[in-house]
């Protein structure tokens, strides 16, 4: 018997929203993460659902705890881990996970090395993740169809059981590359049906990558000279066309190497005084020295 609340009672959505601080988290999400429009929409929807569920509960309407397990699919460097961290924060603010920490694991942390090793190992990880979010990176490695005695299957069974029975104790997020994850879900239909939110992370457009680069540099307190700005645009264009392009991660690596070259340039200048500006500015030559600007065969090795 569900309690019946007076129907004319109004609930203050604004107050509930302010109370949960979720708007702030969503705002920082918008400010600090560039692009990813479908992902942000979905997170907004989930946050809205959780808030409305909470209000429904207050109004005495039936509110089953929603299933919050998610799968993040997308190419390397599209921000899956970053979003998972934010997700833990949002869920914590909305009161759906009690502690709001993120436990990030891969196959190695879950699968044992001999018979009887897997279950305790997996359970230990699950116990650590309780009250928070369990993030399984490259989850498709758990299932190896070519080896029927692989212990990964055992992990999947334990996971399924906990995902079903202890929904209010932890949220599981599986992440991985798109095609491999869809193959993983195809061979594990039980897993697929227990995950309510399949979120796809799109690749970044060149101008988004440019914005990301500027944001990263801003956080590190660097700036680009106008020439370097042009070089960066060109760099991103060339790098995107090359194999092993990992979106934001490639950009970050490129910037790290540019910083390296900048330091070396200042270093090899020998004596003389340096201004604060010199220390902050990355010149075009720092970026143009990259292998990406040389012949394609040579840049093959670069990842």
């Amino acid at each position, binding site marked *: 018997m569900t309690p019946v609340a007076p129907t004319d009672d109004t609930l203050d959505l604004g107050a509930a929203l302010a109370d949960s601080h979720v708007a702030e988290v969503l705002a920082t999400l918008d400010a600090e993460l560039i692009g990813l429009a479908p992902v942000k929409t979905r997170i907004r929807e989930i946050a809205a659902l959780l808030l409305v569920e909470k209000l429904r509960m207050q109004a005495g309407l039936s509110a089953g705890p929603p299933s919050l397990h998610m799968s993040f699919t997308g190419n390397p460097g599209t921000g899956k881990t970053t979003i998972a961290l934010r997700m833990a924060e949002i869920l914590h603010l909305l009161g759906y996970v*009690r*502690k709001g920490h993120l436990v990030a694991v891969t196959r190695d942390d879950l699968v044992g090395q001999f018979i009887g090793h897997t279950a305790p190992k997996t359970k230990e990880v699950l116990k*650590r993740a*309780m*009250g*928070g979010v369990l993030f399984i990176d490259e989850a498709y490695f758990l299932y190896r169809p070519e080896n029927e005695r692989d212990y990964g299957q055992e992990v999947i069974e334990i996971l399924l059981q906990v995902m079903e029975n202890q929904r209010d104790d932890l949220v599981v997020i599986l992440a991985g590359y798109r095609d491999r994850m869809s193959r993983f879900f195809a061979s594990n239909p039980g897993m697929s049906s227990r995950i309510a939110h399949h979120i796809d992370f799109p690749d970044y457009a060149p101008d988004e990558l440019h914005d990301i680069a500027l944001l990263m540099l801003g956080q590190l307190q660097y700036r680009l000279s106008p020439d370097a700005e042009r070089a960066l645009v060109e760099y991103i264009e060339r790098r995107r066309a090359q194999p092993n392009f990992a979106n934001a991660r490639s950009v970050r690596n490129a910037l790290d190497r540019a910083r390296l070259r900048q330091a070396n340039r200042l270093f090899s200048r020998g004596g003389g005084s340096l201004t604060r500006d010199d220390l902050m500015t990355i010149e075009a030559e720092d970026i143009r020295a990259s292998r990406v600007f040389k012949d394609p065969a040579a840049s093959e090795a670069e990842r």
Partner: protein
Amino acid sequence: MRLTQGTFSFLPDLSDDQIRAQIEYCLAQGWALSIEYTDDPHPRNTYWEMFGPPMFDLRDTAGVMTELEDVRRTFPGHYIKLNAFDSTRGFETIRLSFIVNRPRHEPGFRLVREESAGRTVRYTVHAYAADRPEGERYE
């Protein structure tokens, strides 16, 4: 005879909610919880069997409670206790320990008097339950 030992020996048995609150406190202190069980009620039996390794790096009570449900299912008629280990330098010891499960019927102890040389009497405390082999003591 109701066996008592540990931190809350003077209190009635804790309910699950009270156990949860104690675990919450332990985790907030950064202590690692572990579970031990035995079916030998003798007071000098200090080293009980471990049920799994101590649980380090836990953040939430749910992890410990899952394990507790597990041990209660496995050994419903045993004594089970929760220990909280403090790894802080200088302590490095158990800070809190209490019984969370006991057999339904506890027959208690017999006092054995042994007459020895002269008029000397030696006393032995003998648990009635210990007459039966291990694992069959409390059915």
